[in-house]
């Protein structure tokens, strides 16, 4: 126990140990499966992680029978412990045993915040759909003339050619120092294992909105920020309380607003300011977000049927002399191998046509198994409080629910239930939004592609 405590605005160190008996610790760990727990343990026992995740080993100056009564006697060395967990992986057993081994055995002296962050990230990898992400675009603000001392809010500089640059450690120190100084939080950066993303986990122990719970962590909240590589976007998840339920309530909302306010400020530099702009894309699926907003991909603003322009697999060199086949023709250039079937019935032709139309409208996107499922909420809004329209236009609110809404619509088109040729464009998902107001068959406020 430190004798002197001093107030500080610094962020919590990764090496800070949380008591193993703390309910928060077991809550975070018990969400994981047994296999994940064992992988995690082996990660912690890695040589590189020893400064932050060291286990409780047999002390050098122990007596013979010090630990005889223990259910999980401490291991003599790191290697022995590693061997033990590797063996456990091969064996069957209950999750409870592993958990007890963690909390009462090898990490009885407590788990560091870093370990908890790793456990949470493991959960995110195990359950990729557990968070609800909203995508924001980072837009530059016009620089303000220093001599000009008006207090107008800065305006978005549409003609700016600046691409925001993201530097993790600078971002973090700016975020802590200027934006969230009165929030006690632990930050942890980690690369996503499969996607080109940098994940920042913010574990908020204590905020101005909630100061009573520091010791029990009851009100602690976790927020993730994800920075896609080479793309001026940031994905923000909803703050979640330790119980796992997405925070509703005023506190969670205030935190969310605080973050949205703080992130652009932390990204900004002198004479180069940024703001966040919502892209109206909210989904649980990170993979879909990357496909739509990630960097180094051409499909971002050319989704759905427009994918023919973005498909990297198509070779389209001007030095190619062979006449290209149209993208939707059935034969890939040589029709020799295909047997021409006789005159097909009208029904068959309709089915084939429906399938072709689906391919034309959706391109290669929105397939059932592509793992890019998204929930879609589209809002149809007829009445614009209009002065010029005398047609009666009802206000219709429409929500599609499902694990992969666009794949569902595609299937309906393929089976001829929706007429693919008369289907409005926003139903293909090519606009890249999940919420919007539709007028005249187009999603409003999104006439271009939000470039």
């Amino acid at each position: 126990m430190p004798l002197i405590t001093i107030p500080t605005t610094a962020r919590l160190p990764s090496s800070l140990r949380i008591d193993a008996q703390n309910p928060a610790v077991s809550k975070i760990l018990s969400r994981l499966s047994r296999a994940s727990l064992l992988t995690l343990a082996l990660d912690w026992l890695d040589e590189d992680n020893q400064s932050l995740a060291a286990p409780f080993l047999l002390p050098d100056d122990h007596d013979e029978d010090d630990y005889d009564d223990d259910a999980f006697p401490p291991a003599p060395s790191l290697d022995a412990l590693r061997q033990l967990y590797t063996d456990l992986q091969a064996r069957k057993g209950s999750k409870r045993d592993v958990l007890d081994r963690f909390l009462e055995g090898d990490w009885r002296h407590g788990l560091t915040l870093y370990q908890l962050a790793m456990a949470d990230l493991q959960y995110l990898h195990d359950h990729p759909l557990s968070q609800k992400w909203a995508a924001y675009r980072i837009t530059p603000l016009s620089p303000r003339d220093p001599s000009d001392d008006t207090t107008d809010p800065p305006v978005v500089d549409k003609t700016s050619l600046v691409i925001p640059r993201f530097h993790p450690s600078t971002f973090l120190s700016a975020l802590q120092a200027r934006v969230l100084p009165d929030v006690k939080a632990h930050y942890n950066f980690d690369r996503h294992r499969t996607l080109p993303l940098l994940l920042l986990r913010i574990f908020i122990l204590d905020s101005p909105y909630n100061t009573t719970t520091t010791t029990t962590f009851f009100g602690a909240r976790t927020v993730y920020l994800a920075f896609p590589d080479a793309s001026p976007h940031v994905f923000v998840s909803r703050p979640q309380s330790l119980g796992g339920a997405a925070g509703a309530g005023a506190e969670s909302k205030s935190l969310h607003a605080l973050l949205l306010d703080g992130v652009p400020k932390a990204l900004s530099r002198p004479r180069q300011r940024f703001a966040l702009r919502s892209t109206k894309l909210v989904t649980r699926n990170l993979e879909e977000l990357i496909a739509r907003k990630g960097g180094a991909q051409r499909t971002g603003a050319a989704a759905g049927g427009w994918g023919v322009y973005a498909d990297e697999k198509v070779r389209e060199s001007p030095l190619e002399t062979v006449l290209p086949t149209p993208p939707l023709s059935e034969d890939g250039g040589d029709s020799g191998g295909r047997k021409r079937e006789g005159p097909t019935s009208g029904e068959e032709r309709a089915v084939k046509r429906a399938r072709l139309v689906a391919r034309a409208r959706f391109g290669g996107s929105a397939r059932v198994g592509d793992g890019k499922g998204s929930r879609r909420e589209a809002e149809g809004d007829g009445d614009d409080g209009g002065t010029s329209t005398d047609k009666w236009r009802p206000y219709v609110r429409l929500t599609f629910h499902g694990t992969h809404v666009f794949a569902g619509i595609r299937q309906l088109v393929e089976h001829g239930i929706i007429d693919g040729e008369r289907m409005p464009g926003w139903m293909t998902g090519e606009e890249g939004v999940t919420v919007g107001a539709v007028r005249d068959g187009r999603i409003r406020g999104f006439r271009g592609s939000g470039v």
Partner: protein
Amino acid sequence: MASTPLDDEIERLQARADALKSLLRIQTSTILAAPPTRALLTTSTAKTRQNEALLARADAQLAHNQQSLYRACASLTTFRARDPDPNAVDAGAILGVRVEVVSRAKFLRPYYVLLNRPYGGSGSRSRHLRVHRHTVPPCIPLAGLAARYLAPPPSNGGQEEGKQDLAKFARALRRELVRYHHRLGVVADLRKAAGLGGKKATGDGEEGGGEDGEGGDGRLVDISAADAEAKQISIQWADGRTGRLVMGDDGEIVKVVAVGDHGRDREAVRQLFGDAKTVGEVARRLAEP
């Protein structure tokens, strides 16, 4: 799967058949595009169905050849397309701009910007264009360029007439794209010159074996683009020194800094860069010895 000699032979024959087929396609296109073929087809008196089909094919081939010629020489070409959305503005008319980018002596897949005219409503007949869809990567400031050169028309008889300049827009966009690819190319050149192999570090074996000539810790272990635009390059030495190089739009060196254990390491910078003005020169210097 056990592969018997028969399977191997079938595979070989199939590959050969594919090769021959593609050869046949190339020969067909060459013969169709040749002027004598055309003369023969047009002068031929017999108006058979086959003849007409051939003529149509020859016309298509000629059109394709001409398009390819324009694309190869002009690097900025336009085309028309149609929006499949039945509710699309302006009856779905789309003007496409195709930007060719050449990198490492190869034509890359062109970048497309598809424009429409959404402002024509309410009888104003505005001819102003707007970016509808595009395949430009996010590290190119397309939005900024569009706001500069393809400004929307002033709403309700505003101040000055918003002038649009598609040619300037396309030129500026092409310049950004080409610069971007050149910068990527120069980073790849640097890597190659420093003996860092392909895209990713290929493992310890090569690093340890290939470079021991250069006195241990002084060698470079990593050079990579550090940001989306490939304007910053991060450099890492084997002994833990790190460096950052800021590249200008056209590959000139704007700033270099290297930091070692004892603060800034100016000596390392001098050694590596000498009096080079551009990153390309550095790559050449590195490749020399």
